[in-house]
């Protein structure tokens, strides 16, 4: 064991009369951008996306993080993929929208609901599922995205005819 630590003389540098740089806060804060207009229109582009990640990106422009505050209720096994009852509730505050994605449908985005102020962040609906796949619910709350997923087994597909 060899240590070669030479003693370093401590030198104190006194900066006398150092010019202090005052960082003056800029007075003109940028105005908060107006709410994205895309939120008020039918998101046609997002509905055309094939896979889930692209659809989420087209709809929201960001990614979601899983959260146990989003409760997704769907059957373990759907006997008829044409009618799968699915609902979502959340304890999150300031919810502005709730969306449903079915990973292996021809188009992943199934439905998106806009939740204005005063409306409960809770939706029940019925969706089609082509086959056994992952179901994702995304809740947009206070500008952030939270998700919950569930695997649903489909015994008869909803798009086969």
């Amino acid at each position, binding site marked *: 064991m060899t240590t070669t630590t030479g003693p370093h003389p401590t030198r104190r540098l006194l900066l006398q009369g150092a010019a202090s740089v005052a960082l003056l806060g800029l007075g003109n804060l940028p105005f908060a951008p107006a709410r994205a207009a895309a939120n008020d229109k*039918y*998101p046609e582009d997002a*509905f055309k996306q094939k896979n889930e990640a692209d659809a989420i990106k087209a709809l929201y422009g960001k990614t979601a993080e899983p959260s146990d505050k989003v409760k997704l209720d769907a059957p373990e096994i759907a006997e008829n993929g*044409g*009618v*799968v009852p699915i*609902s979502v509730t959340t304890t999150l505050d300031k919810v502005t929208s709730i969306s449903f994605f*079915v990973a292996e*449908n*021809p*188009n992943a*985005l*199934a*439905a*998106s*609901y*806009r*939740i*204005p102020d*005063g*409306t*409960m962040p*809770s*939706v*029940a*609906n*019925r*969706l*089609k*599922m082509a086959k056994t796949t992952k179901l994702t619910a995304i809740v947009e709350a206070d500008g952030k995205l939270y998700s919950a997923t569930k695997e649903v087994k489909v015994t008869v597909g*909803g*798009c*086969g*005819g």
Partner: protein
Amino acid sequence: MASSIRVRATANGDTTEVQALIQHPMDSGFVKDSKGELIPAHFIQELKFECNGKDVFIADWGTAVSKDPYVKFSFKGARKGDDLKVSWTDNKGASDTTTAKIS
């Protein structure tokens, strides 16, 4: 013609629960008919609920919503006797509107 929309809105205190059932084929555009020809997509794109001049719920739908769609939600601020206006438009430009009294 009878309305395609059946809606029930029930006020319980400050909260109104709304259930709506709409008659619509919601054709996805992926299904073939008995002659083997694709049935073109025909589905509701937007469904809107208005109460006292304010939008309370807006649904944007794709083809993956089941035939004869059903939806349920709740909102605050309405009372018994208020009008709830429901309207939809589909991808072929068809639409329907109905007004229900909150009970």
